[in-house]
């Protein structure tokens, strides 16, 4: 239960997110993977705050997560709105079929 453990935990979670992003074909699954990455960032913040040295500003450990969660939710709102609109019009949620825009 030390900082390195927490950091490696969040790093692993981050790499799961990347793995999910690269291998998932459904857009919502990719968004889900991104959720994982952002969650890894949260763990980092809290871990750093907990193990911060003497003069550190530990309040940030709580305030930064608030803003991260707020931003994530805003982004997810927009993302899902776009996906729902696209699904209604094009009936496609597979990222590999989104390739009309290419050189």
């Amino acid at each position, binding site marked *: 239960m030390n900082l390195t453990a927490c950091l490696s935990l969040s790093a692993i979670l981050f790499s799961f997110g*990347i793995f999910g*992003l*690269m291998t998932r074909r459904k857009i919502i699954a990719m968004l889900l993977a991104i959720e994982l990455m952002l969650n890894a960032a949260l763990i980092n913040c809290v871990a750093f705050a907990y193990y911060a040295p003497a003069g550190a500003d530990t309040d940030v450990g709580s305030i930064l997560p608030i803003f991260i969660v707020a931003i994530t939710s805003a982004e997810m709102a927009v993302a899902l709105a776009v996906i729902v609109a696209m699904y209604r019009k094009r009936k496609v949620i597979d*990222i*590999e079929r*989104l*390739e*009309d*825009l*290419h*050189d």
Partner: protein
Amino acid sequence: MIESSWMILLLPFISFIGGILFLHKQPKLAAGFSILCNGAAMVMALILAVGFLSSDDTGYHALAHTWSYDWFAITDTLTVSIGALLDPISIMMLVVITVISTLVHTYSIGYMENDASAGRFFPLLSFFVFSMLGLVIAPTLVQMFVFWELVGVSSYMLIGFWYHKPSAVAASKKAFIITRFADAFFLTGIILMATQFGSIGFDAINQGATAFSSMNTANPSFSLEGGAVQVFTALAAQEGSAGFLGLNLLSWATILIFIGGWGKSAMFPLHVWLPDAMEGPTPVSSIIHSATMVVAGIYLTARLFPVFAVAEYTLSVVEFTGAITALFAAIIACTQRDIKRILAFSTLSQLGYMMFSLGVADMEHTAGFTASMFHVFTHAFFKCLLFLSAGLIIHSVHSNDIALMGGLRKKLKGTYFVTLLAVCAIAGVPFLFSGFWSKEEIIMAAWSNGHQCSAIIGLLVGGLTAFYMGRYFFLIFHGEYRGDAHHLEHAHENKFMLFPMVLLAIPTIIAGYPMLTGHTFFNTVIPQATLPTHPDHSASWIMPVAIAMAIGGLLVAWLKYGRRAVSFDTPSTNIVYRCISNKFYIDECYIFVTKKIIFRCVAAPMKLCDDYIVDGIIHSSAAIMRGCAAVIRHWQNGQTHVYLGLMIIGLALLAWFGGAL
């Protein structure tokens, strides 16, 4: 009178400008105007000569610097100027040029009677005379080079005068390029002289050189002033140095300058343009390719004689080329069928004579120098006469080929008599004619100065000259007429053409006598009064041998060609004869060198290199760019996973480049 020498130079130029701009439509008017100008120039030249001869200041004649105009400055010490330097040989040349040009102008009126572009001919001829005069009175090497080029240009324009004839155009191009090739070396020589020896003026160079040479022979050196001092110090400085390829700097400079003369006077390897120059009208050949232009090389060597003498090998090079050319040209002349080509080769051989006679002389024994100048003087007249008569013959027989002539003495009596005089002069018939005296002087000078082999070659060439001139004379005037009978009736002698020939006959005879009267007209050129000027007649056997060779040559020619009819239809199978008549195939070698080697093996690969290598690199770089662009567009295929993948790889690259990890 000396001060107005620039008038002599200007008159032909006025006739050129006037003729070209205004009179090229009226040939008669142009002819009259140019004769007037050239005649005036002749008169002034003669007055100048007479004035010079009568002035009795003995010893070293003050070099008359009459006028000079500063053209442009190159370095602060070196300024190029145009001026006049009058001394015995330049005045002699002035007289020769103006006399011959006036006579040739009158001759051309007859010659160019029914030629449409005659209006263009006379101005061009005057332009040639102007540039030749400029060359002769040049006080500096650069001015000589300037007029040297102008002479080359005027010879190009005059040889190619009938520009619709492809052969004339090719001949003019050949002449210009070969002389230009020699001029490149001449220019290098001048620049070496100007930069390394500090002066380009003839008098400065000559005084410096004589002072340097006389320093060795332990008599008091002259008081030097102006450019001569630098020349003297420069000569002393580079004396010992081994220089480049074994020759020291002075011999390099002098040999390079001599190569300029080599090209212009058509010495052995660079002679190929002179026979082809016969494509031009005959008056052109008579003035340019017999009397004046081709002598420019000899005049240059004479002008720079003191420096050439000081340099180690230069004079021996001069002698060697002169002898070779004399012998080589004489042999070829014996086999030619075109009468103008025969005269051209005879000119070549006589030039060889003059050149090697300069070669044999040196600072102590200047006999060779005076003999060569004397031969230039005499040769100009009888060679011009021969060409004018050949022109008249061609005019009446309408062909150059000697096979279509014969037995013309009945129809062209005047020409017959005059040509006889000229042939005797050139063949060296003794005592009466000028040719004999000047040739004998040369051989005597060569022998007395210790150059035995050149003297023997001289004698041999004398015999050969007699033989081919005899062949020339008998084949044209004796025997039956072999040509088209129709031309024979109409053959007549135009009085405009005959009159100058008769006038020329006089100097061919009397030109020899100044030597007899012992007048030291020519000796006064070399500025050392103390040395013996008169050649010692030690070897008394030379005179009779020379006479024997001349008479023998003529006799053999008469036996072979004069007595019985000669048929030309069966070309002789003898290999040597065919080789000689084809001028030892030297023309073919030149064509091979230029076409095969220069155009195919040098210019063509350069063009290929330019198109494919230098240009290729630039075009290939553009092609590489297009290739990379294609790769990038291939990966831009719209797949989001590819984009995300590259972003993450980009992240890794950033970390790697950050270097801190």
